[in-house]
């Protein structure tokens, strides 16, 4: 994890350090247990194929969790997450890398808080966007640091 990022340090278009994840079937089973989402498309290949899917697919929430990690790693302990959202546009297959990206779309002050709106997305190894989303983060200021 890098040091603390401050509102003054960033500008529109700034990119977040990318995060790459490689979810295995074991991780999906652990995630199913930890989240309570036992839908079989996430660990039972026969069930997934019978459901018309190309194979076992990664939980959308797990992919969103990876994007969340990218953001919380970047914003540091003094940043606060205000909003996080993701839309699922495609499937991440188990055993394939998930590439997480983000950049600053806007920075603004609202109700005395220094906020940053981030655009973020996840890609599969073929460059297809599987998740698109946004996050809003409140950052500390160097002036009050």
């Amino acid at each position: 994890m890098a040091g603390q990022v401050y509102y003054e340090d960033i500008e529109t278009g700034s990119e977040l350090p990318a995060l790459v994840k490689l979810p295995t079937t074991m991780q999906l089973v652990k995630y199913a247990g930890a989240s309570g989402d036992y839908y079989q498309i996430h660990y039972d290949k026969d069930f997934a194929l019978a459901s018309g899917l190309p194979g076992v697919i990664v939980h959308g929430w797990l992919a969103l969790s990876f994007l969340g990690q990218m953001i919380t790693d970047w914003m540091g302990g003094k940043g606060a997450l205000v909003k996080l959202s993701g839309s699922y546009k495609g499937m991440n297959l188990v055993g394939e890398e998930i590439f997480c990206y983000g950049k600053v779309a806007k920075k603004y002050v609202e109700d005395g808080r220094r906020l940053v709106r981030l655009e973020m997305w996840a890609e599969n190894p073929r460059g297809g966007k599987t998740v698109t989303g946004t996050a809003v983060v409140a950052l500390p200021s160097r002036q009050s640091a």
Partner: protein
Amino acid sequence: MSEEPVISEELQGLLNVEFGPEVYEVEKGMVKRFAEAIGDPNPLWRELAPPTFPTALVPTELLHKMVTARSPLKRLLNGGNELEYFQPIRVGDVISVTARLERLRKMEGKEGTTLFMVVAITYKNERGELVAKGRNTFVRY
């Protein structure tokens, strides 16, 4: 025989009905297992819940009724998730979860008829303070 409706009376009957609260004690081990499962080693998650943790606080009654409601559309996917945070969820918090099916929208898409079901969820702590709001879109097709 008439064709089975995509939005059954049973499903329609769930619209705008508040379910819950279902109450969850946020145990240390629960948060630890969640952080391990998402593969996020951030030490903050020893005391605080990671951002997507609210998904583990499932409004089971409404979701169970939604997925078991009769429908000609047999397949189900997660379409999208939104969370808005008002304060961190901490180990030891007792979170009350209420949920409401707020929208049913039928569309014709490339997979045929598709039904979007939007659920709004509210998370409050043991002091009755709002900690997070969620909005989840389920897709039947």
